[in-house]
């Protein structure tokens, strides 16, 4: 398997990618982590992809539970990791690692000095590869789906509901996007309809909220099973309607060149 391909696959699964030097083998930085042949202490030399809450780990020693492959004490690697134990120190589970060559690091660093933006760009890349339709344009109208209007009217009139009243209900609306350009996929007509949850419940709060006049690059999906309960939305999704539930599904226009490249990439 080509090295770049393996890196892409690991990067698609890992949320914490860093360059680090193995300081001690069969060791841990916290007593709660059982020491095994696969636990090593690594000094984080450089963050490549990281969420905001973990951006001050450069220079810190952390515990890494190794995935496939061995490491040598004193050697530097790129680790592809996810979280494990967060206590007085940090322990991560490595999905894999590779030698920390300059090309390997550069390939992962869309924003070399900003691991948070690099992670965000990577998530946008994944969303773009999975999108069914990518367009640029602007939101010309927001409206209630017809089914939602009927349900609300019925509930108000009868004092009862035939659909659930739940704090996790999406409270759908439709955004009508006037299309400037189709970047990926095919679409008839100059407009596309996106159903989106207006709910601020924990289930939906991170899903993009659309508003009239908004412009950008819109990464649209027919099936976002991996993001949320597709059934909650699919029942009312028309043949030419889409969802955009992941925070990375709406991008500013300045990201268009990067999205255009991602749209041509294969699904990792």
């Amino acid at each position, binding site marked *: 398997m080509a090295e770049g391909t393996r890196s892409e696959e690991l990067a698609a699964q890992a949320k914490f990618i860093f360059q680090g030097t193995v300081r001690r083998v069969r060791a841990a930085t916290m007593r709660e982590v059982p020491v095994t042949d696969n636990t090593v202490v690594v000094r984080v030399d450089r963050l490549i992809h990281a969420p905001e*809450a973990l951006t001050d780990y450069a220079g810190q020693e952390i515990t890494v539970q190794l995935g496939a492959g061995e490491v040598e004490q004193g050697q530097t690697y790129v680790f592809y990791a996810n979280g494990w134990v*967060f206590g007085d120190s940090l322990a991560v589970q490595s999905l894999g690692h590779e030698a920390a060559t300059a090309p390997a690091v550069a390939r992962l660093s869309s924003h070399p000095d900003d691991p948070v933006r690099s992670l965000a760009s990577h998530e946008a890349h994944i969303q773009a590869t999975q999108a069914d339709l990518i367009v640029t344009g602007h939101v010309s109208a927001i409206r209630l789906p017809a089914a939602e209007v009927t349900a609300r009217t019925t509930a108000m009139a009868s004092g009862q509901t035939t659909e659930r009243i739940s704090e996790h209900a999406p409270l759908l609306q439709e955004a009508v996007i006037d299309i400037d350009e189709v970047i990926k996929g095919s679409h008839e007509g100059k407009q596309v309809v996106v159903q989106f949850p207006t709910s601020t419940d924990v289930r939906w709060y991170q899903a993009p909220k659309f508003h009239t006049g908004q412009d950008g690059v819109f990464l649209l999906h027919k099936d976002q099973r991996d993001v949320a309960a597709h059934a909650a939305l699919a029942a009312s999704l028309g043949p030419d309607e889409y969802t955009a539930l992941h925070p990375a599904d709406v991008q500013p226009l300045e990201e268009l060149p990067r999205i255009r490249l991602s749209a041509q990439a294969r699904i990792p």
Partner: protein
Amino acid sequence: MPVLVVNMIPRSLSRETNQDSEPAITVNPANPLEIVGTAFTPDPMGGPVAPIFVSTDGGNTWRLNSIVPSVANTTVPTGDICLAFASAGGNLYGGILGQPSFEFETLRTPAFSNPTPMEVLGHRPDNDQPFTHAITNAGQDHVYIGNNDFQNQPRTATVDVSTNANAAQPKFQSARIETRQTAGQDGPQIRPVAHADGKVYAAFYGWRAQSGSFPGNTLVVTTDVVVVRDDQNAAGANLFQNLIDPADGLAGRIVARGVRIPFNRNGVAATGQQRLGGTLSIAVDPRPNQSNTVYLAWADLQPQTGHTLHVRRSTNGGAVWSPADLLTIANATNAALAINSEGTVGLLYQQLTGTGTNRRWVTHFRRTPDGMAWSDMIFATTPANIPGKLFDPYLGDYDHLVAVDKDFYGIFSANNTPNLANFPQGVKFQRNADFNTQTLLALDNTTSVPVSIDPFFFKVSD
């Protein structure tokens, strides 16, 4: 009376700013040093498993262990989550609304502090607010998970029951506990509790009518507060039929009839950013021969005192309840009851005080030996307008209290400003903080970190 209050966010996450709301807690009765907490806390790295808070030293220190099955790249790693230890053997059980579909999942692990993800025992869609209670009888783990099952509309109040949950292939059945007509569904709070002698109670809001609009944030529900009981561990047929209401002859004693509650889609400034929708808690006296003593707390909407808590008691298994409140609390929510091994009752709740920008969330813990004289201890008094809400619920649709032996263990969510004046019983922070400047600090102990909502653990020992 020793009191311990701990901010549960570990030092390694000193930079985090999540809204860690809707907390729940469980203590291993076989080893009370082992405690597990949960909240709307994402995996800090956004990975494919969601975390639980773990303590193995009685709540003095906490760490996150990511073992709740989820999927990567979701925006929220798990929805509602409530776990419970069995009373022997150390098995940890739970009900969650799991990702990616928010399906109701039943979980189990024999080793909560290991990295192995919890086992999924079962799952089904269209559900809400699983709330877990577990007890061990004759070597069998009995697990009761209250849940609002929309697959059974219009009678949605349900308790999923297993009386062999520690078996290799445990069997769960869904006990439908609503026997009356509803307004299309019941409320999401279905709260089970069990006694070692085999009595199992559950409380729920039986929704009878509605007015206003949920999307418009004006919905008001007319509801009964109902208690059901099963006298044989909920192990046979015809579950939860042992408590009959004398008015209509149906199973389920109506403790409060036709009360009104708001059911908010979102919190607003006037509600301290917290969405309100009722609150419900039930506790049984765990002492031998005391299983007929039950305390119940609920909220309704009162013209003068807003979202108002009521506490009442039954001493005959739920058949007759105290005719008047033992305790009434104005403008409050998140009631959580527990009874310790001496019969002392504990009540945790969060009360909104003040007006305008002076509104504060005040977290109380009250105790009574007899239902009449209540002590009062304030764990936190924090601004209700700071930080701004990231999502609903701001503090949670519930908090949680349990008792093991004589000790009470609880969990609540609150503004995490490191200001000792906000924590009258004292507080211990694990995350970096400067109490002199009242500033949260990042891992470097220099960079300031914005205020957010954190989970707080407390233990009150007699």
